[in-house]
């Protein structure tokens, strides 16, 4: 008897959860703007991954006599940069590093921030105070300043730029995770799990994680847009990627000197950053709308 009830109890929330996510999925697939953004992002991702097989020019091979060609020059569909390298190839290859340094900090921040927030929200008391007051300190810095301060102190480099951006996002995600967890902590089903003898780790992993992950995930998706802009910004300042690596922020920096010769080629890498950033923003908005079942 009790075994049957247990099985039924365990199955019930799982079914319901699947139902919720199916609903969200269906709602978002009907949203034209979100779908368009998803397609654009998928194309940019795929072309970055498949870059070596797309039959593009060598992104590192320069040519002193073909410098700063205009857009739609034969052989150079999007022109060439200040060292005569093919812009189309560099923009496509540039997606590889740009997307990694833009998205990885949010993923790391999501993992660390969710764990910290979950612990702070579940434990409460002194643990909560210790974690959340530390988080407050990082809120005393504007995020751009904090990222640049840490990267500036650590020195230029891809790893340092990822580390500094992760440090910027961990406090923000921790705060969201903590507030969502605190909201869930006193719900009856958590109390029931505790009464039935589940340990804190099991409660957090099995009973709470599924309930808090959604809002944190949407928040983190919104951060990708900021992260893309900041990561490329660090490279733009010379604190991220080093030449000759193709990366959108760095390309924007090195092409800055060319704006009097070939202005529109110089602006191209920014278009890529803008496209990725706005698509993630719209997708995050779409997800937030789709997950708000009350509407």
């Amino acid at each position, binding site marked *: 008897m009790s075994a049957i009830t247990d099985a039924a109890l365990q199955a019930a929330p799982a079914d319901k959860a699947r139902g919720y996510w199916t609903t969200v999925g269906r709602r978002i697939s009907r949203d034209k703007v979100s779908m368009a953004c998803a397609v654009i992002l998928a194309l940019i991702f795929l072309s970055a991954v498949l870059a070596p097989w797309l039959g593009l020019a060598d992104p590192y091979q320069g040519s002193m006599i073909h410098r700063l060609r205009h857009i739609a020059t034969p052989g150079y569909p999007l022109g060439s940069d200040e060292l005569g390298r093919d812009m189309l190839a560099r923009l496509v290859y540039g997606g590889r590093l740009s997307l990694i340094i833009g998205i990885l900090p949010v993923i790391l921040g999501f993992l660390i921030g969710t764990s910290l927030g979950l612990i702070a929200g579940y434990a409460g008391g002194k643990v909560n105070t210790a974690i959340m007051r530390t988080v*407050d300190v990082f809120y005393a810095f504007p995020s751009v300043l904090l990222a640049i301060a840490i990267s500036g102190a650590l020195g230029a480099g891809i790893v340092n730029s990822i580390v500094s951006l992760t440090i910027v996002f961990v406090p923000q995600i921790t705060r969201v995770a903590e507030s969502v967890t605190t909201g869930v902590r006193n719900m009856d089903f958590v109390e029931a799990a505790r009464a039935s003898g589940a340990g804190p780790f099991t409660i957090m992993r099995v009973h709470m994680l599924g309930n808090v992950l959604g809002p944190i995930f949407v928040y983190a998706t919104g951060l990708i847009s900021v992260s893309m*802009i900041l990561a490329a*910004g660090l490279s733009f300042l010379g604190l991220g990627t080093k030449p000759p690596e193709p990366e959108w922020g760095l390309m924007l920096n090195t092409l800055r000197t060319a704006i*009097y010769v070939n202005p529109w080629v*110089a602006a191209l890498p920014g278009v890529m950053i803008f496209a990725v950033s706005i698509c993630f923003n719209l997708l995050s*908005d779409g997800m937030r709308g789709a997950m708000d079942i009350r509407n």
Partner: protein
Amino acid sequence: MLVYIARRIVYVIPIVLSVALVCFMLVHITPGDPLVAILPADASQELANQMRAAYGFDRPLPVQFWLWLWKALNGDLGHSIATGRPVLTEVLRAVGNTVTLAIAAAIIGFTLGLFFGLIAGYFRGTWIDRVATSIAIAGVSVPHYWLGMVLVIIFSVELNWLPAVGAGPGGSSAWGWDWDHIRYLILPAVTTSVIPMGIVTRTVRSLTGDILSQDFVEALRAKGLRETHVFRHVLKNAAPTALAVMGLQLGYMLGGSILIETVFSWPGSGLLLNSAIFQRDLPLLQGTILVLALFFVFLNLIVDVVQAAIDPRIKRT
């Protein structure tokens, strides 16, 4: 009210101390010795030790921190390694230019943001809403340093209407509110204003929407109030939150100006920070970040106090 202000001020003290600690630690997270960057590569061990003692780097970290903090409290942030001038003098002169830029950008960004946000919230679901929301989302998604470049390409390179870089005649020290100077301010200020414009639009739009869906608005209309008067009630209800968001945005503009100041060679704190980073001028780096972060902390304090003062719903005891 006074009790609230006092409590809020007391709460700032630990924050200021921790901010100082973070700024202090910045120099010490650098790989190796802070002096490595400035010593010539062939410096003798003896010279290195002398320098270390002269800068106090031979003492234990906590001692160094308290000494540094004590000096900082007395307005001594050390001397710039590159120029030899006091850090505080350098920073304060640059911050003035950043404040000029931030205020100009705030006027543009907040005015547009409030306007777009109010009409979008008021005409929710119509084409007006869609246009305003699109502008807002573009504003928060655009890499602003790139937008700066594009504006330079259009207005300086192609049209030759406005200067591309600098802060006008007199350089960094002689700012004046005349056309000779303002024409240098237009492009950087417009560039800086897009993010706050987008964020204020989105905040005000959702605030207006929420307020309009509340029952009291229905009651006001039922009692026969004209729409302009209803609008005034909406404004009154939205003001505290909108003001808090704008205060925070002003802080971000002051502290996060490095990218735009680099694009436009605007001689503010961001450009100073940039040169401090690339010349490995650590005292200047530390001092600039400390001053900017303290600005931000105190701006937050002012926003909280003002918000409590104008919003009767916030408990002031």
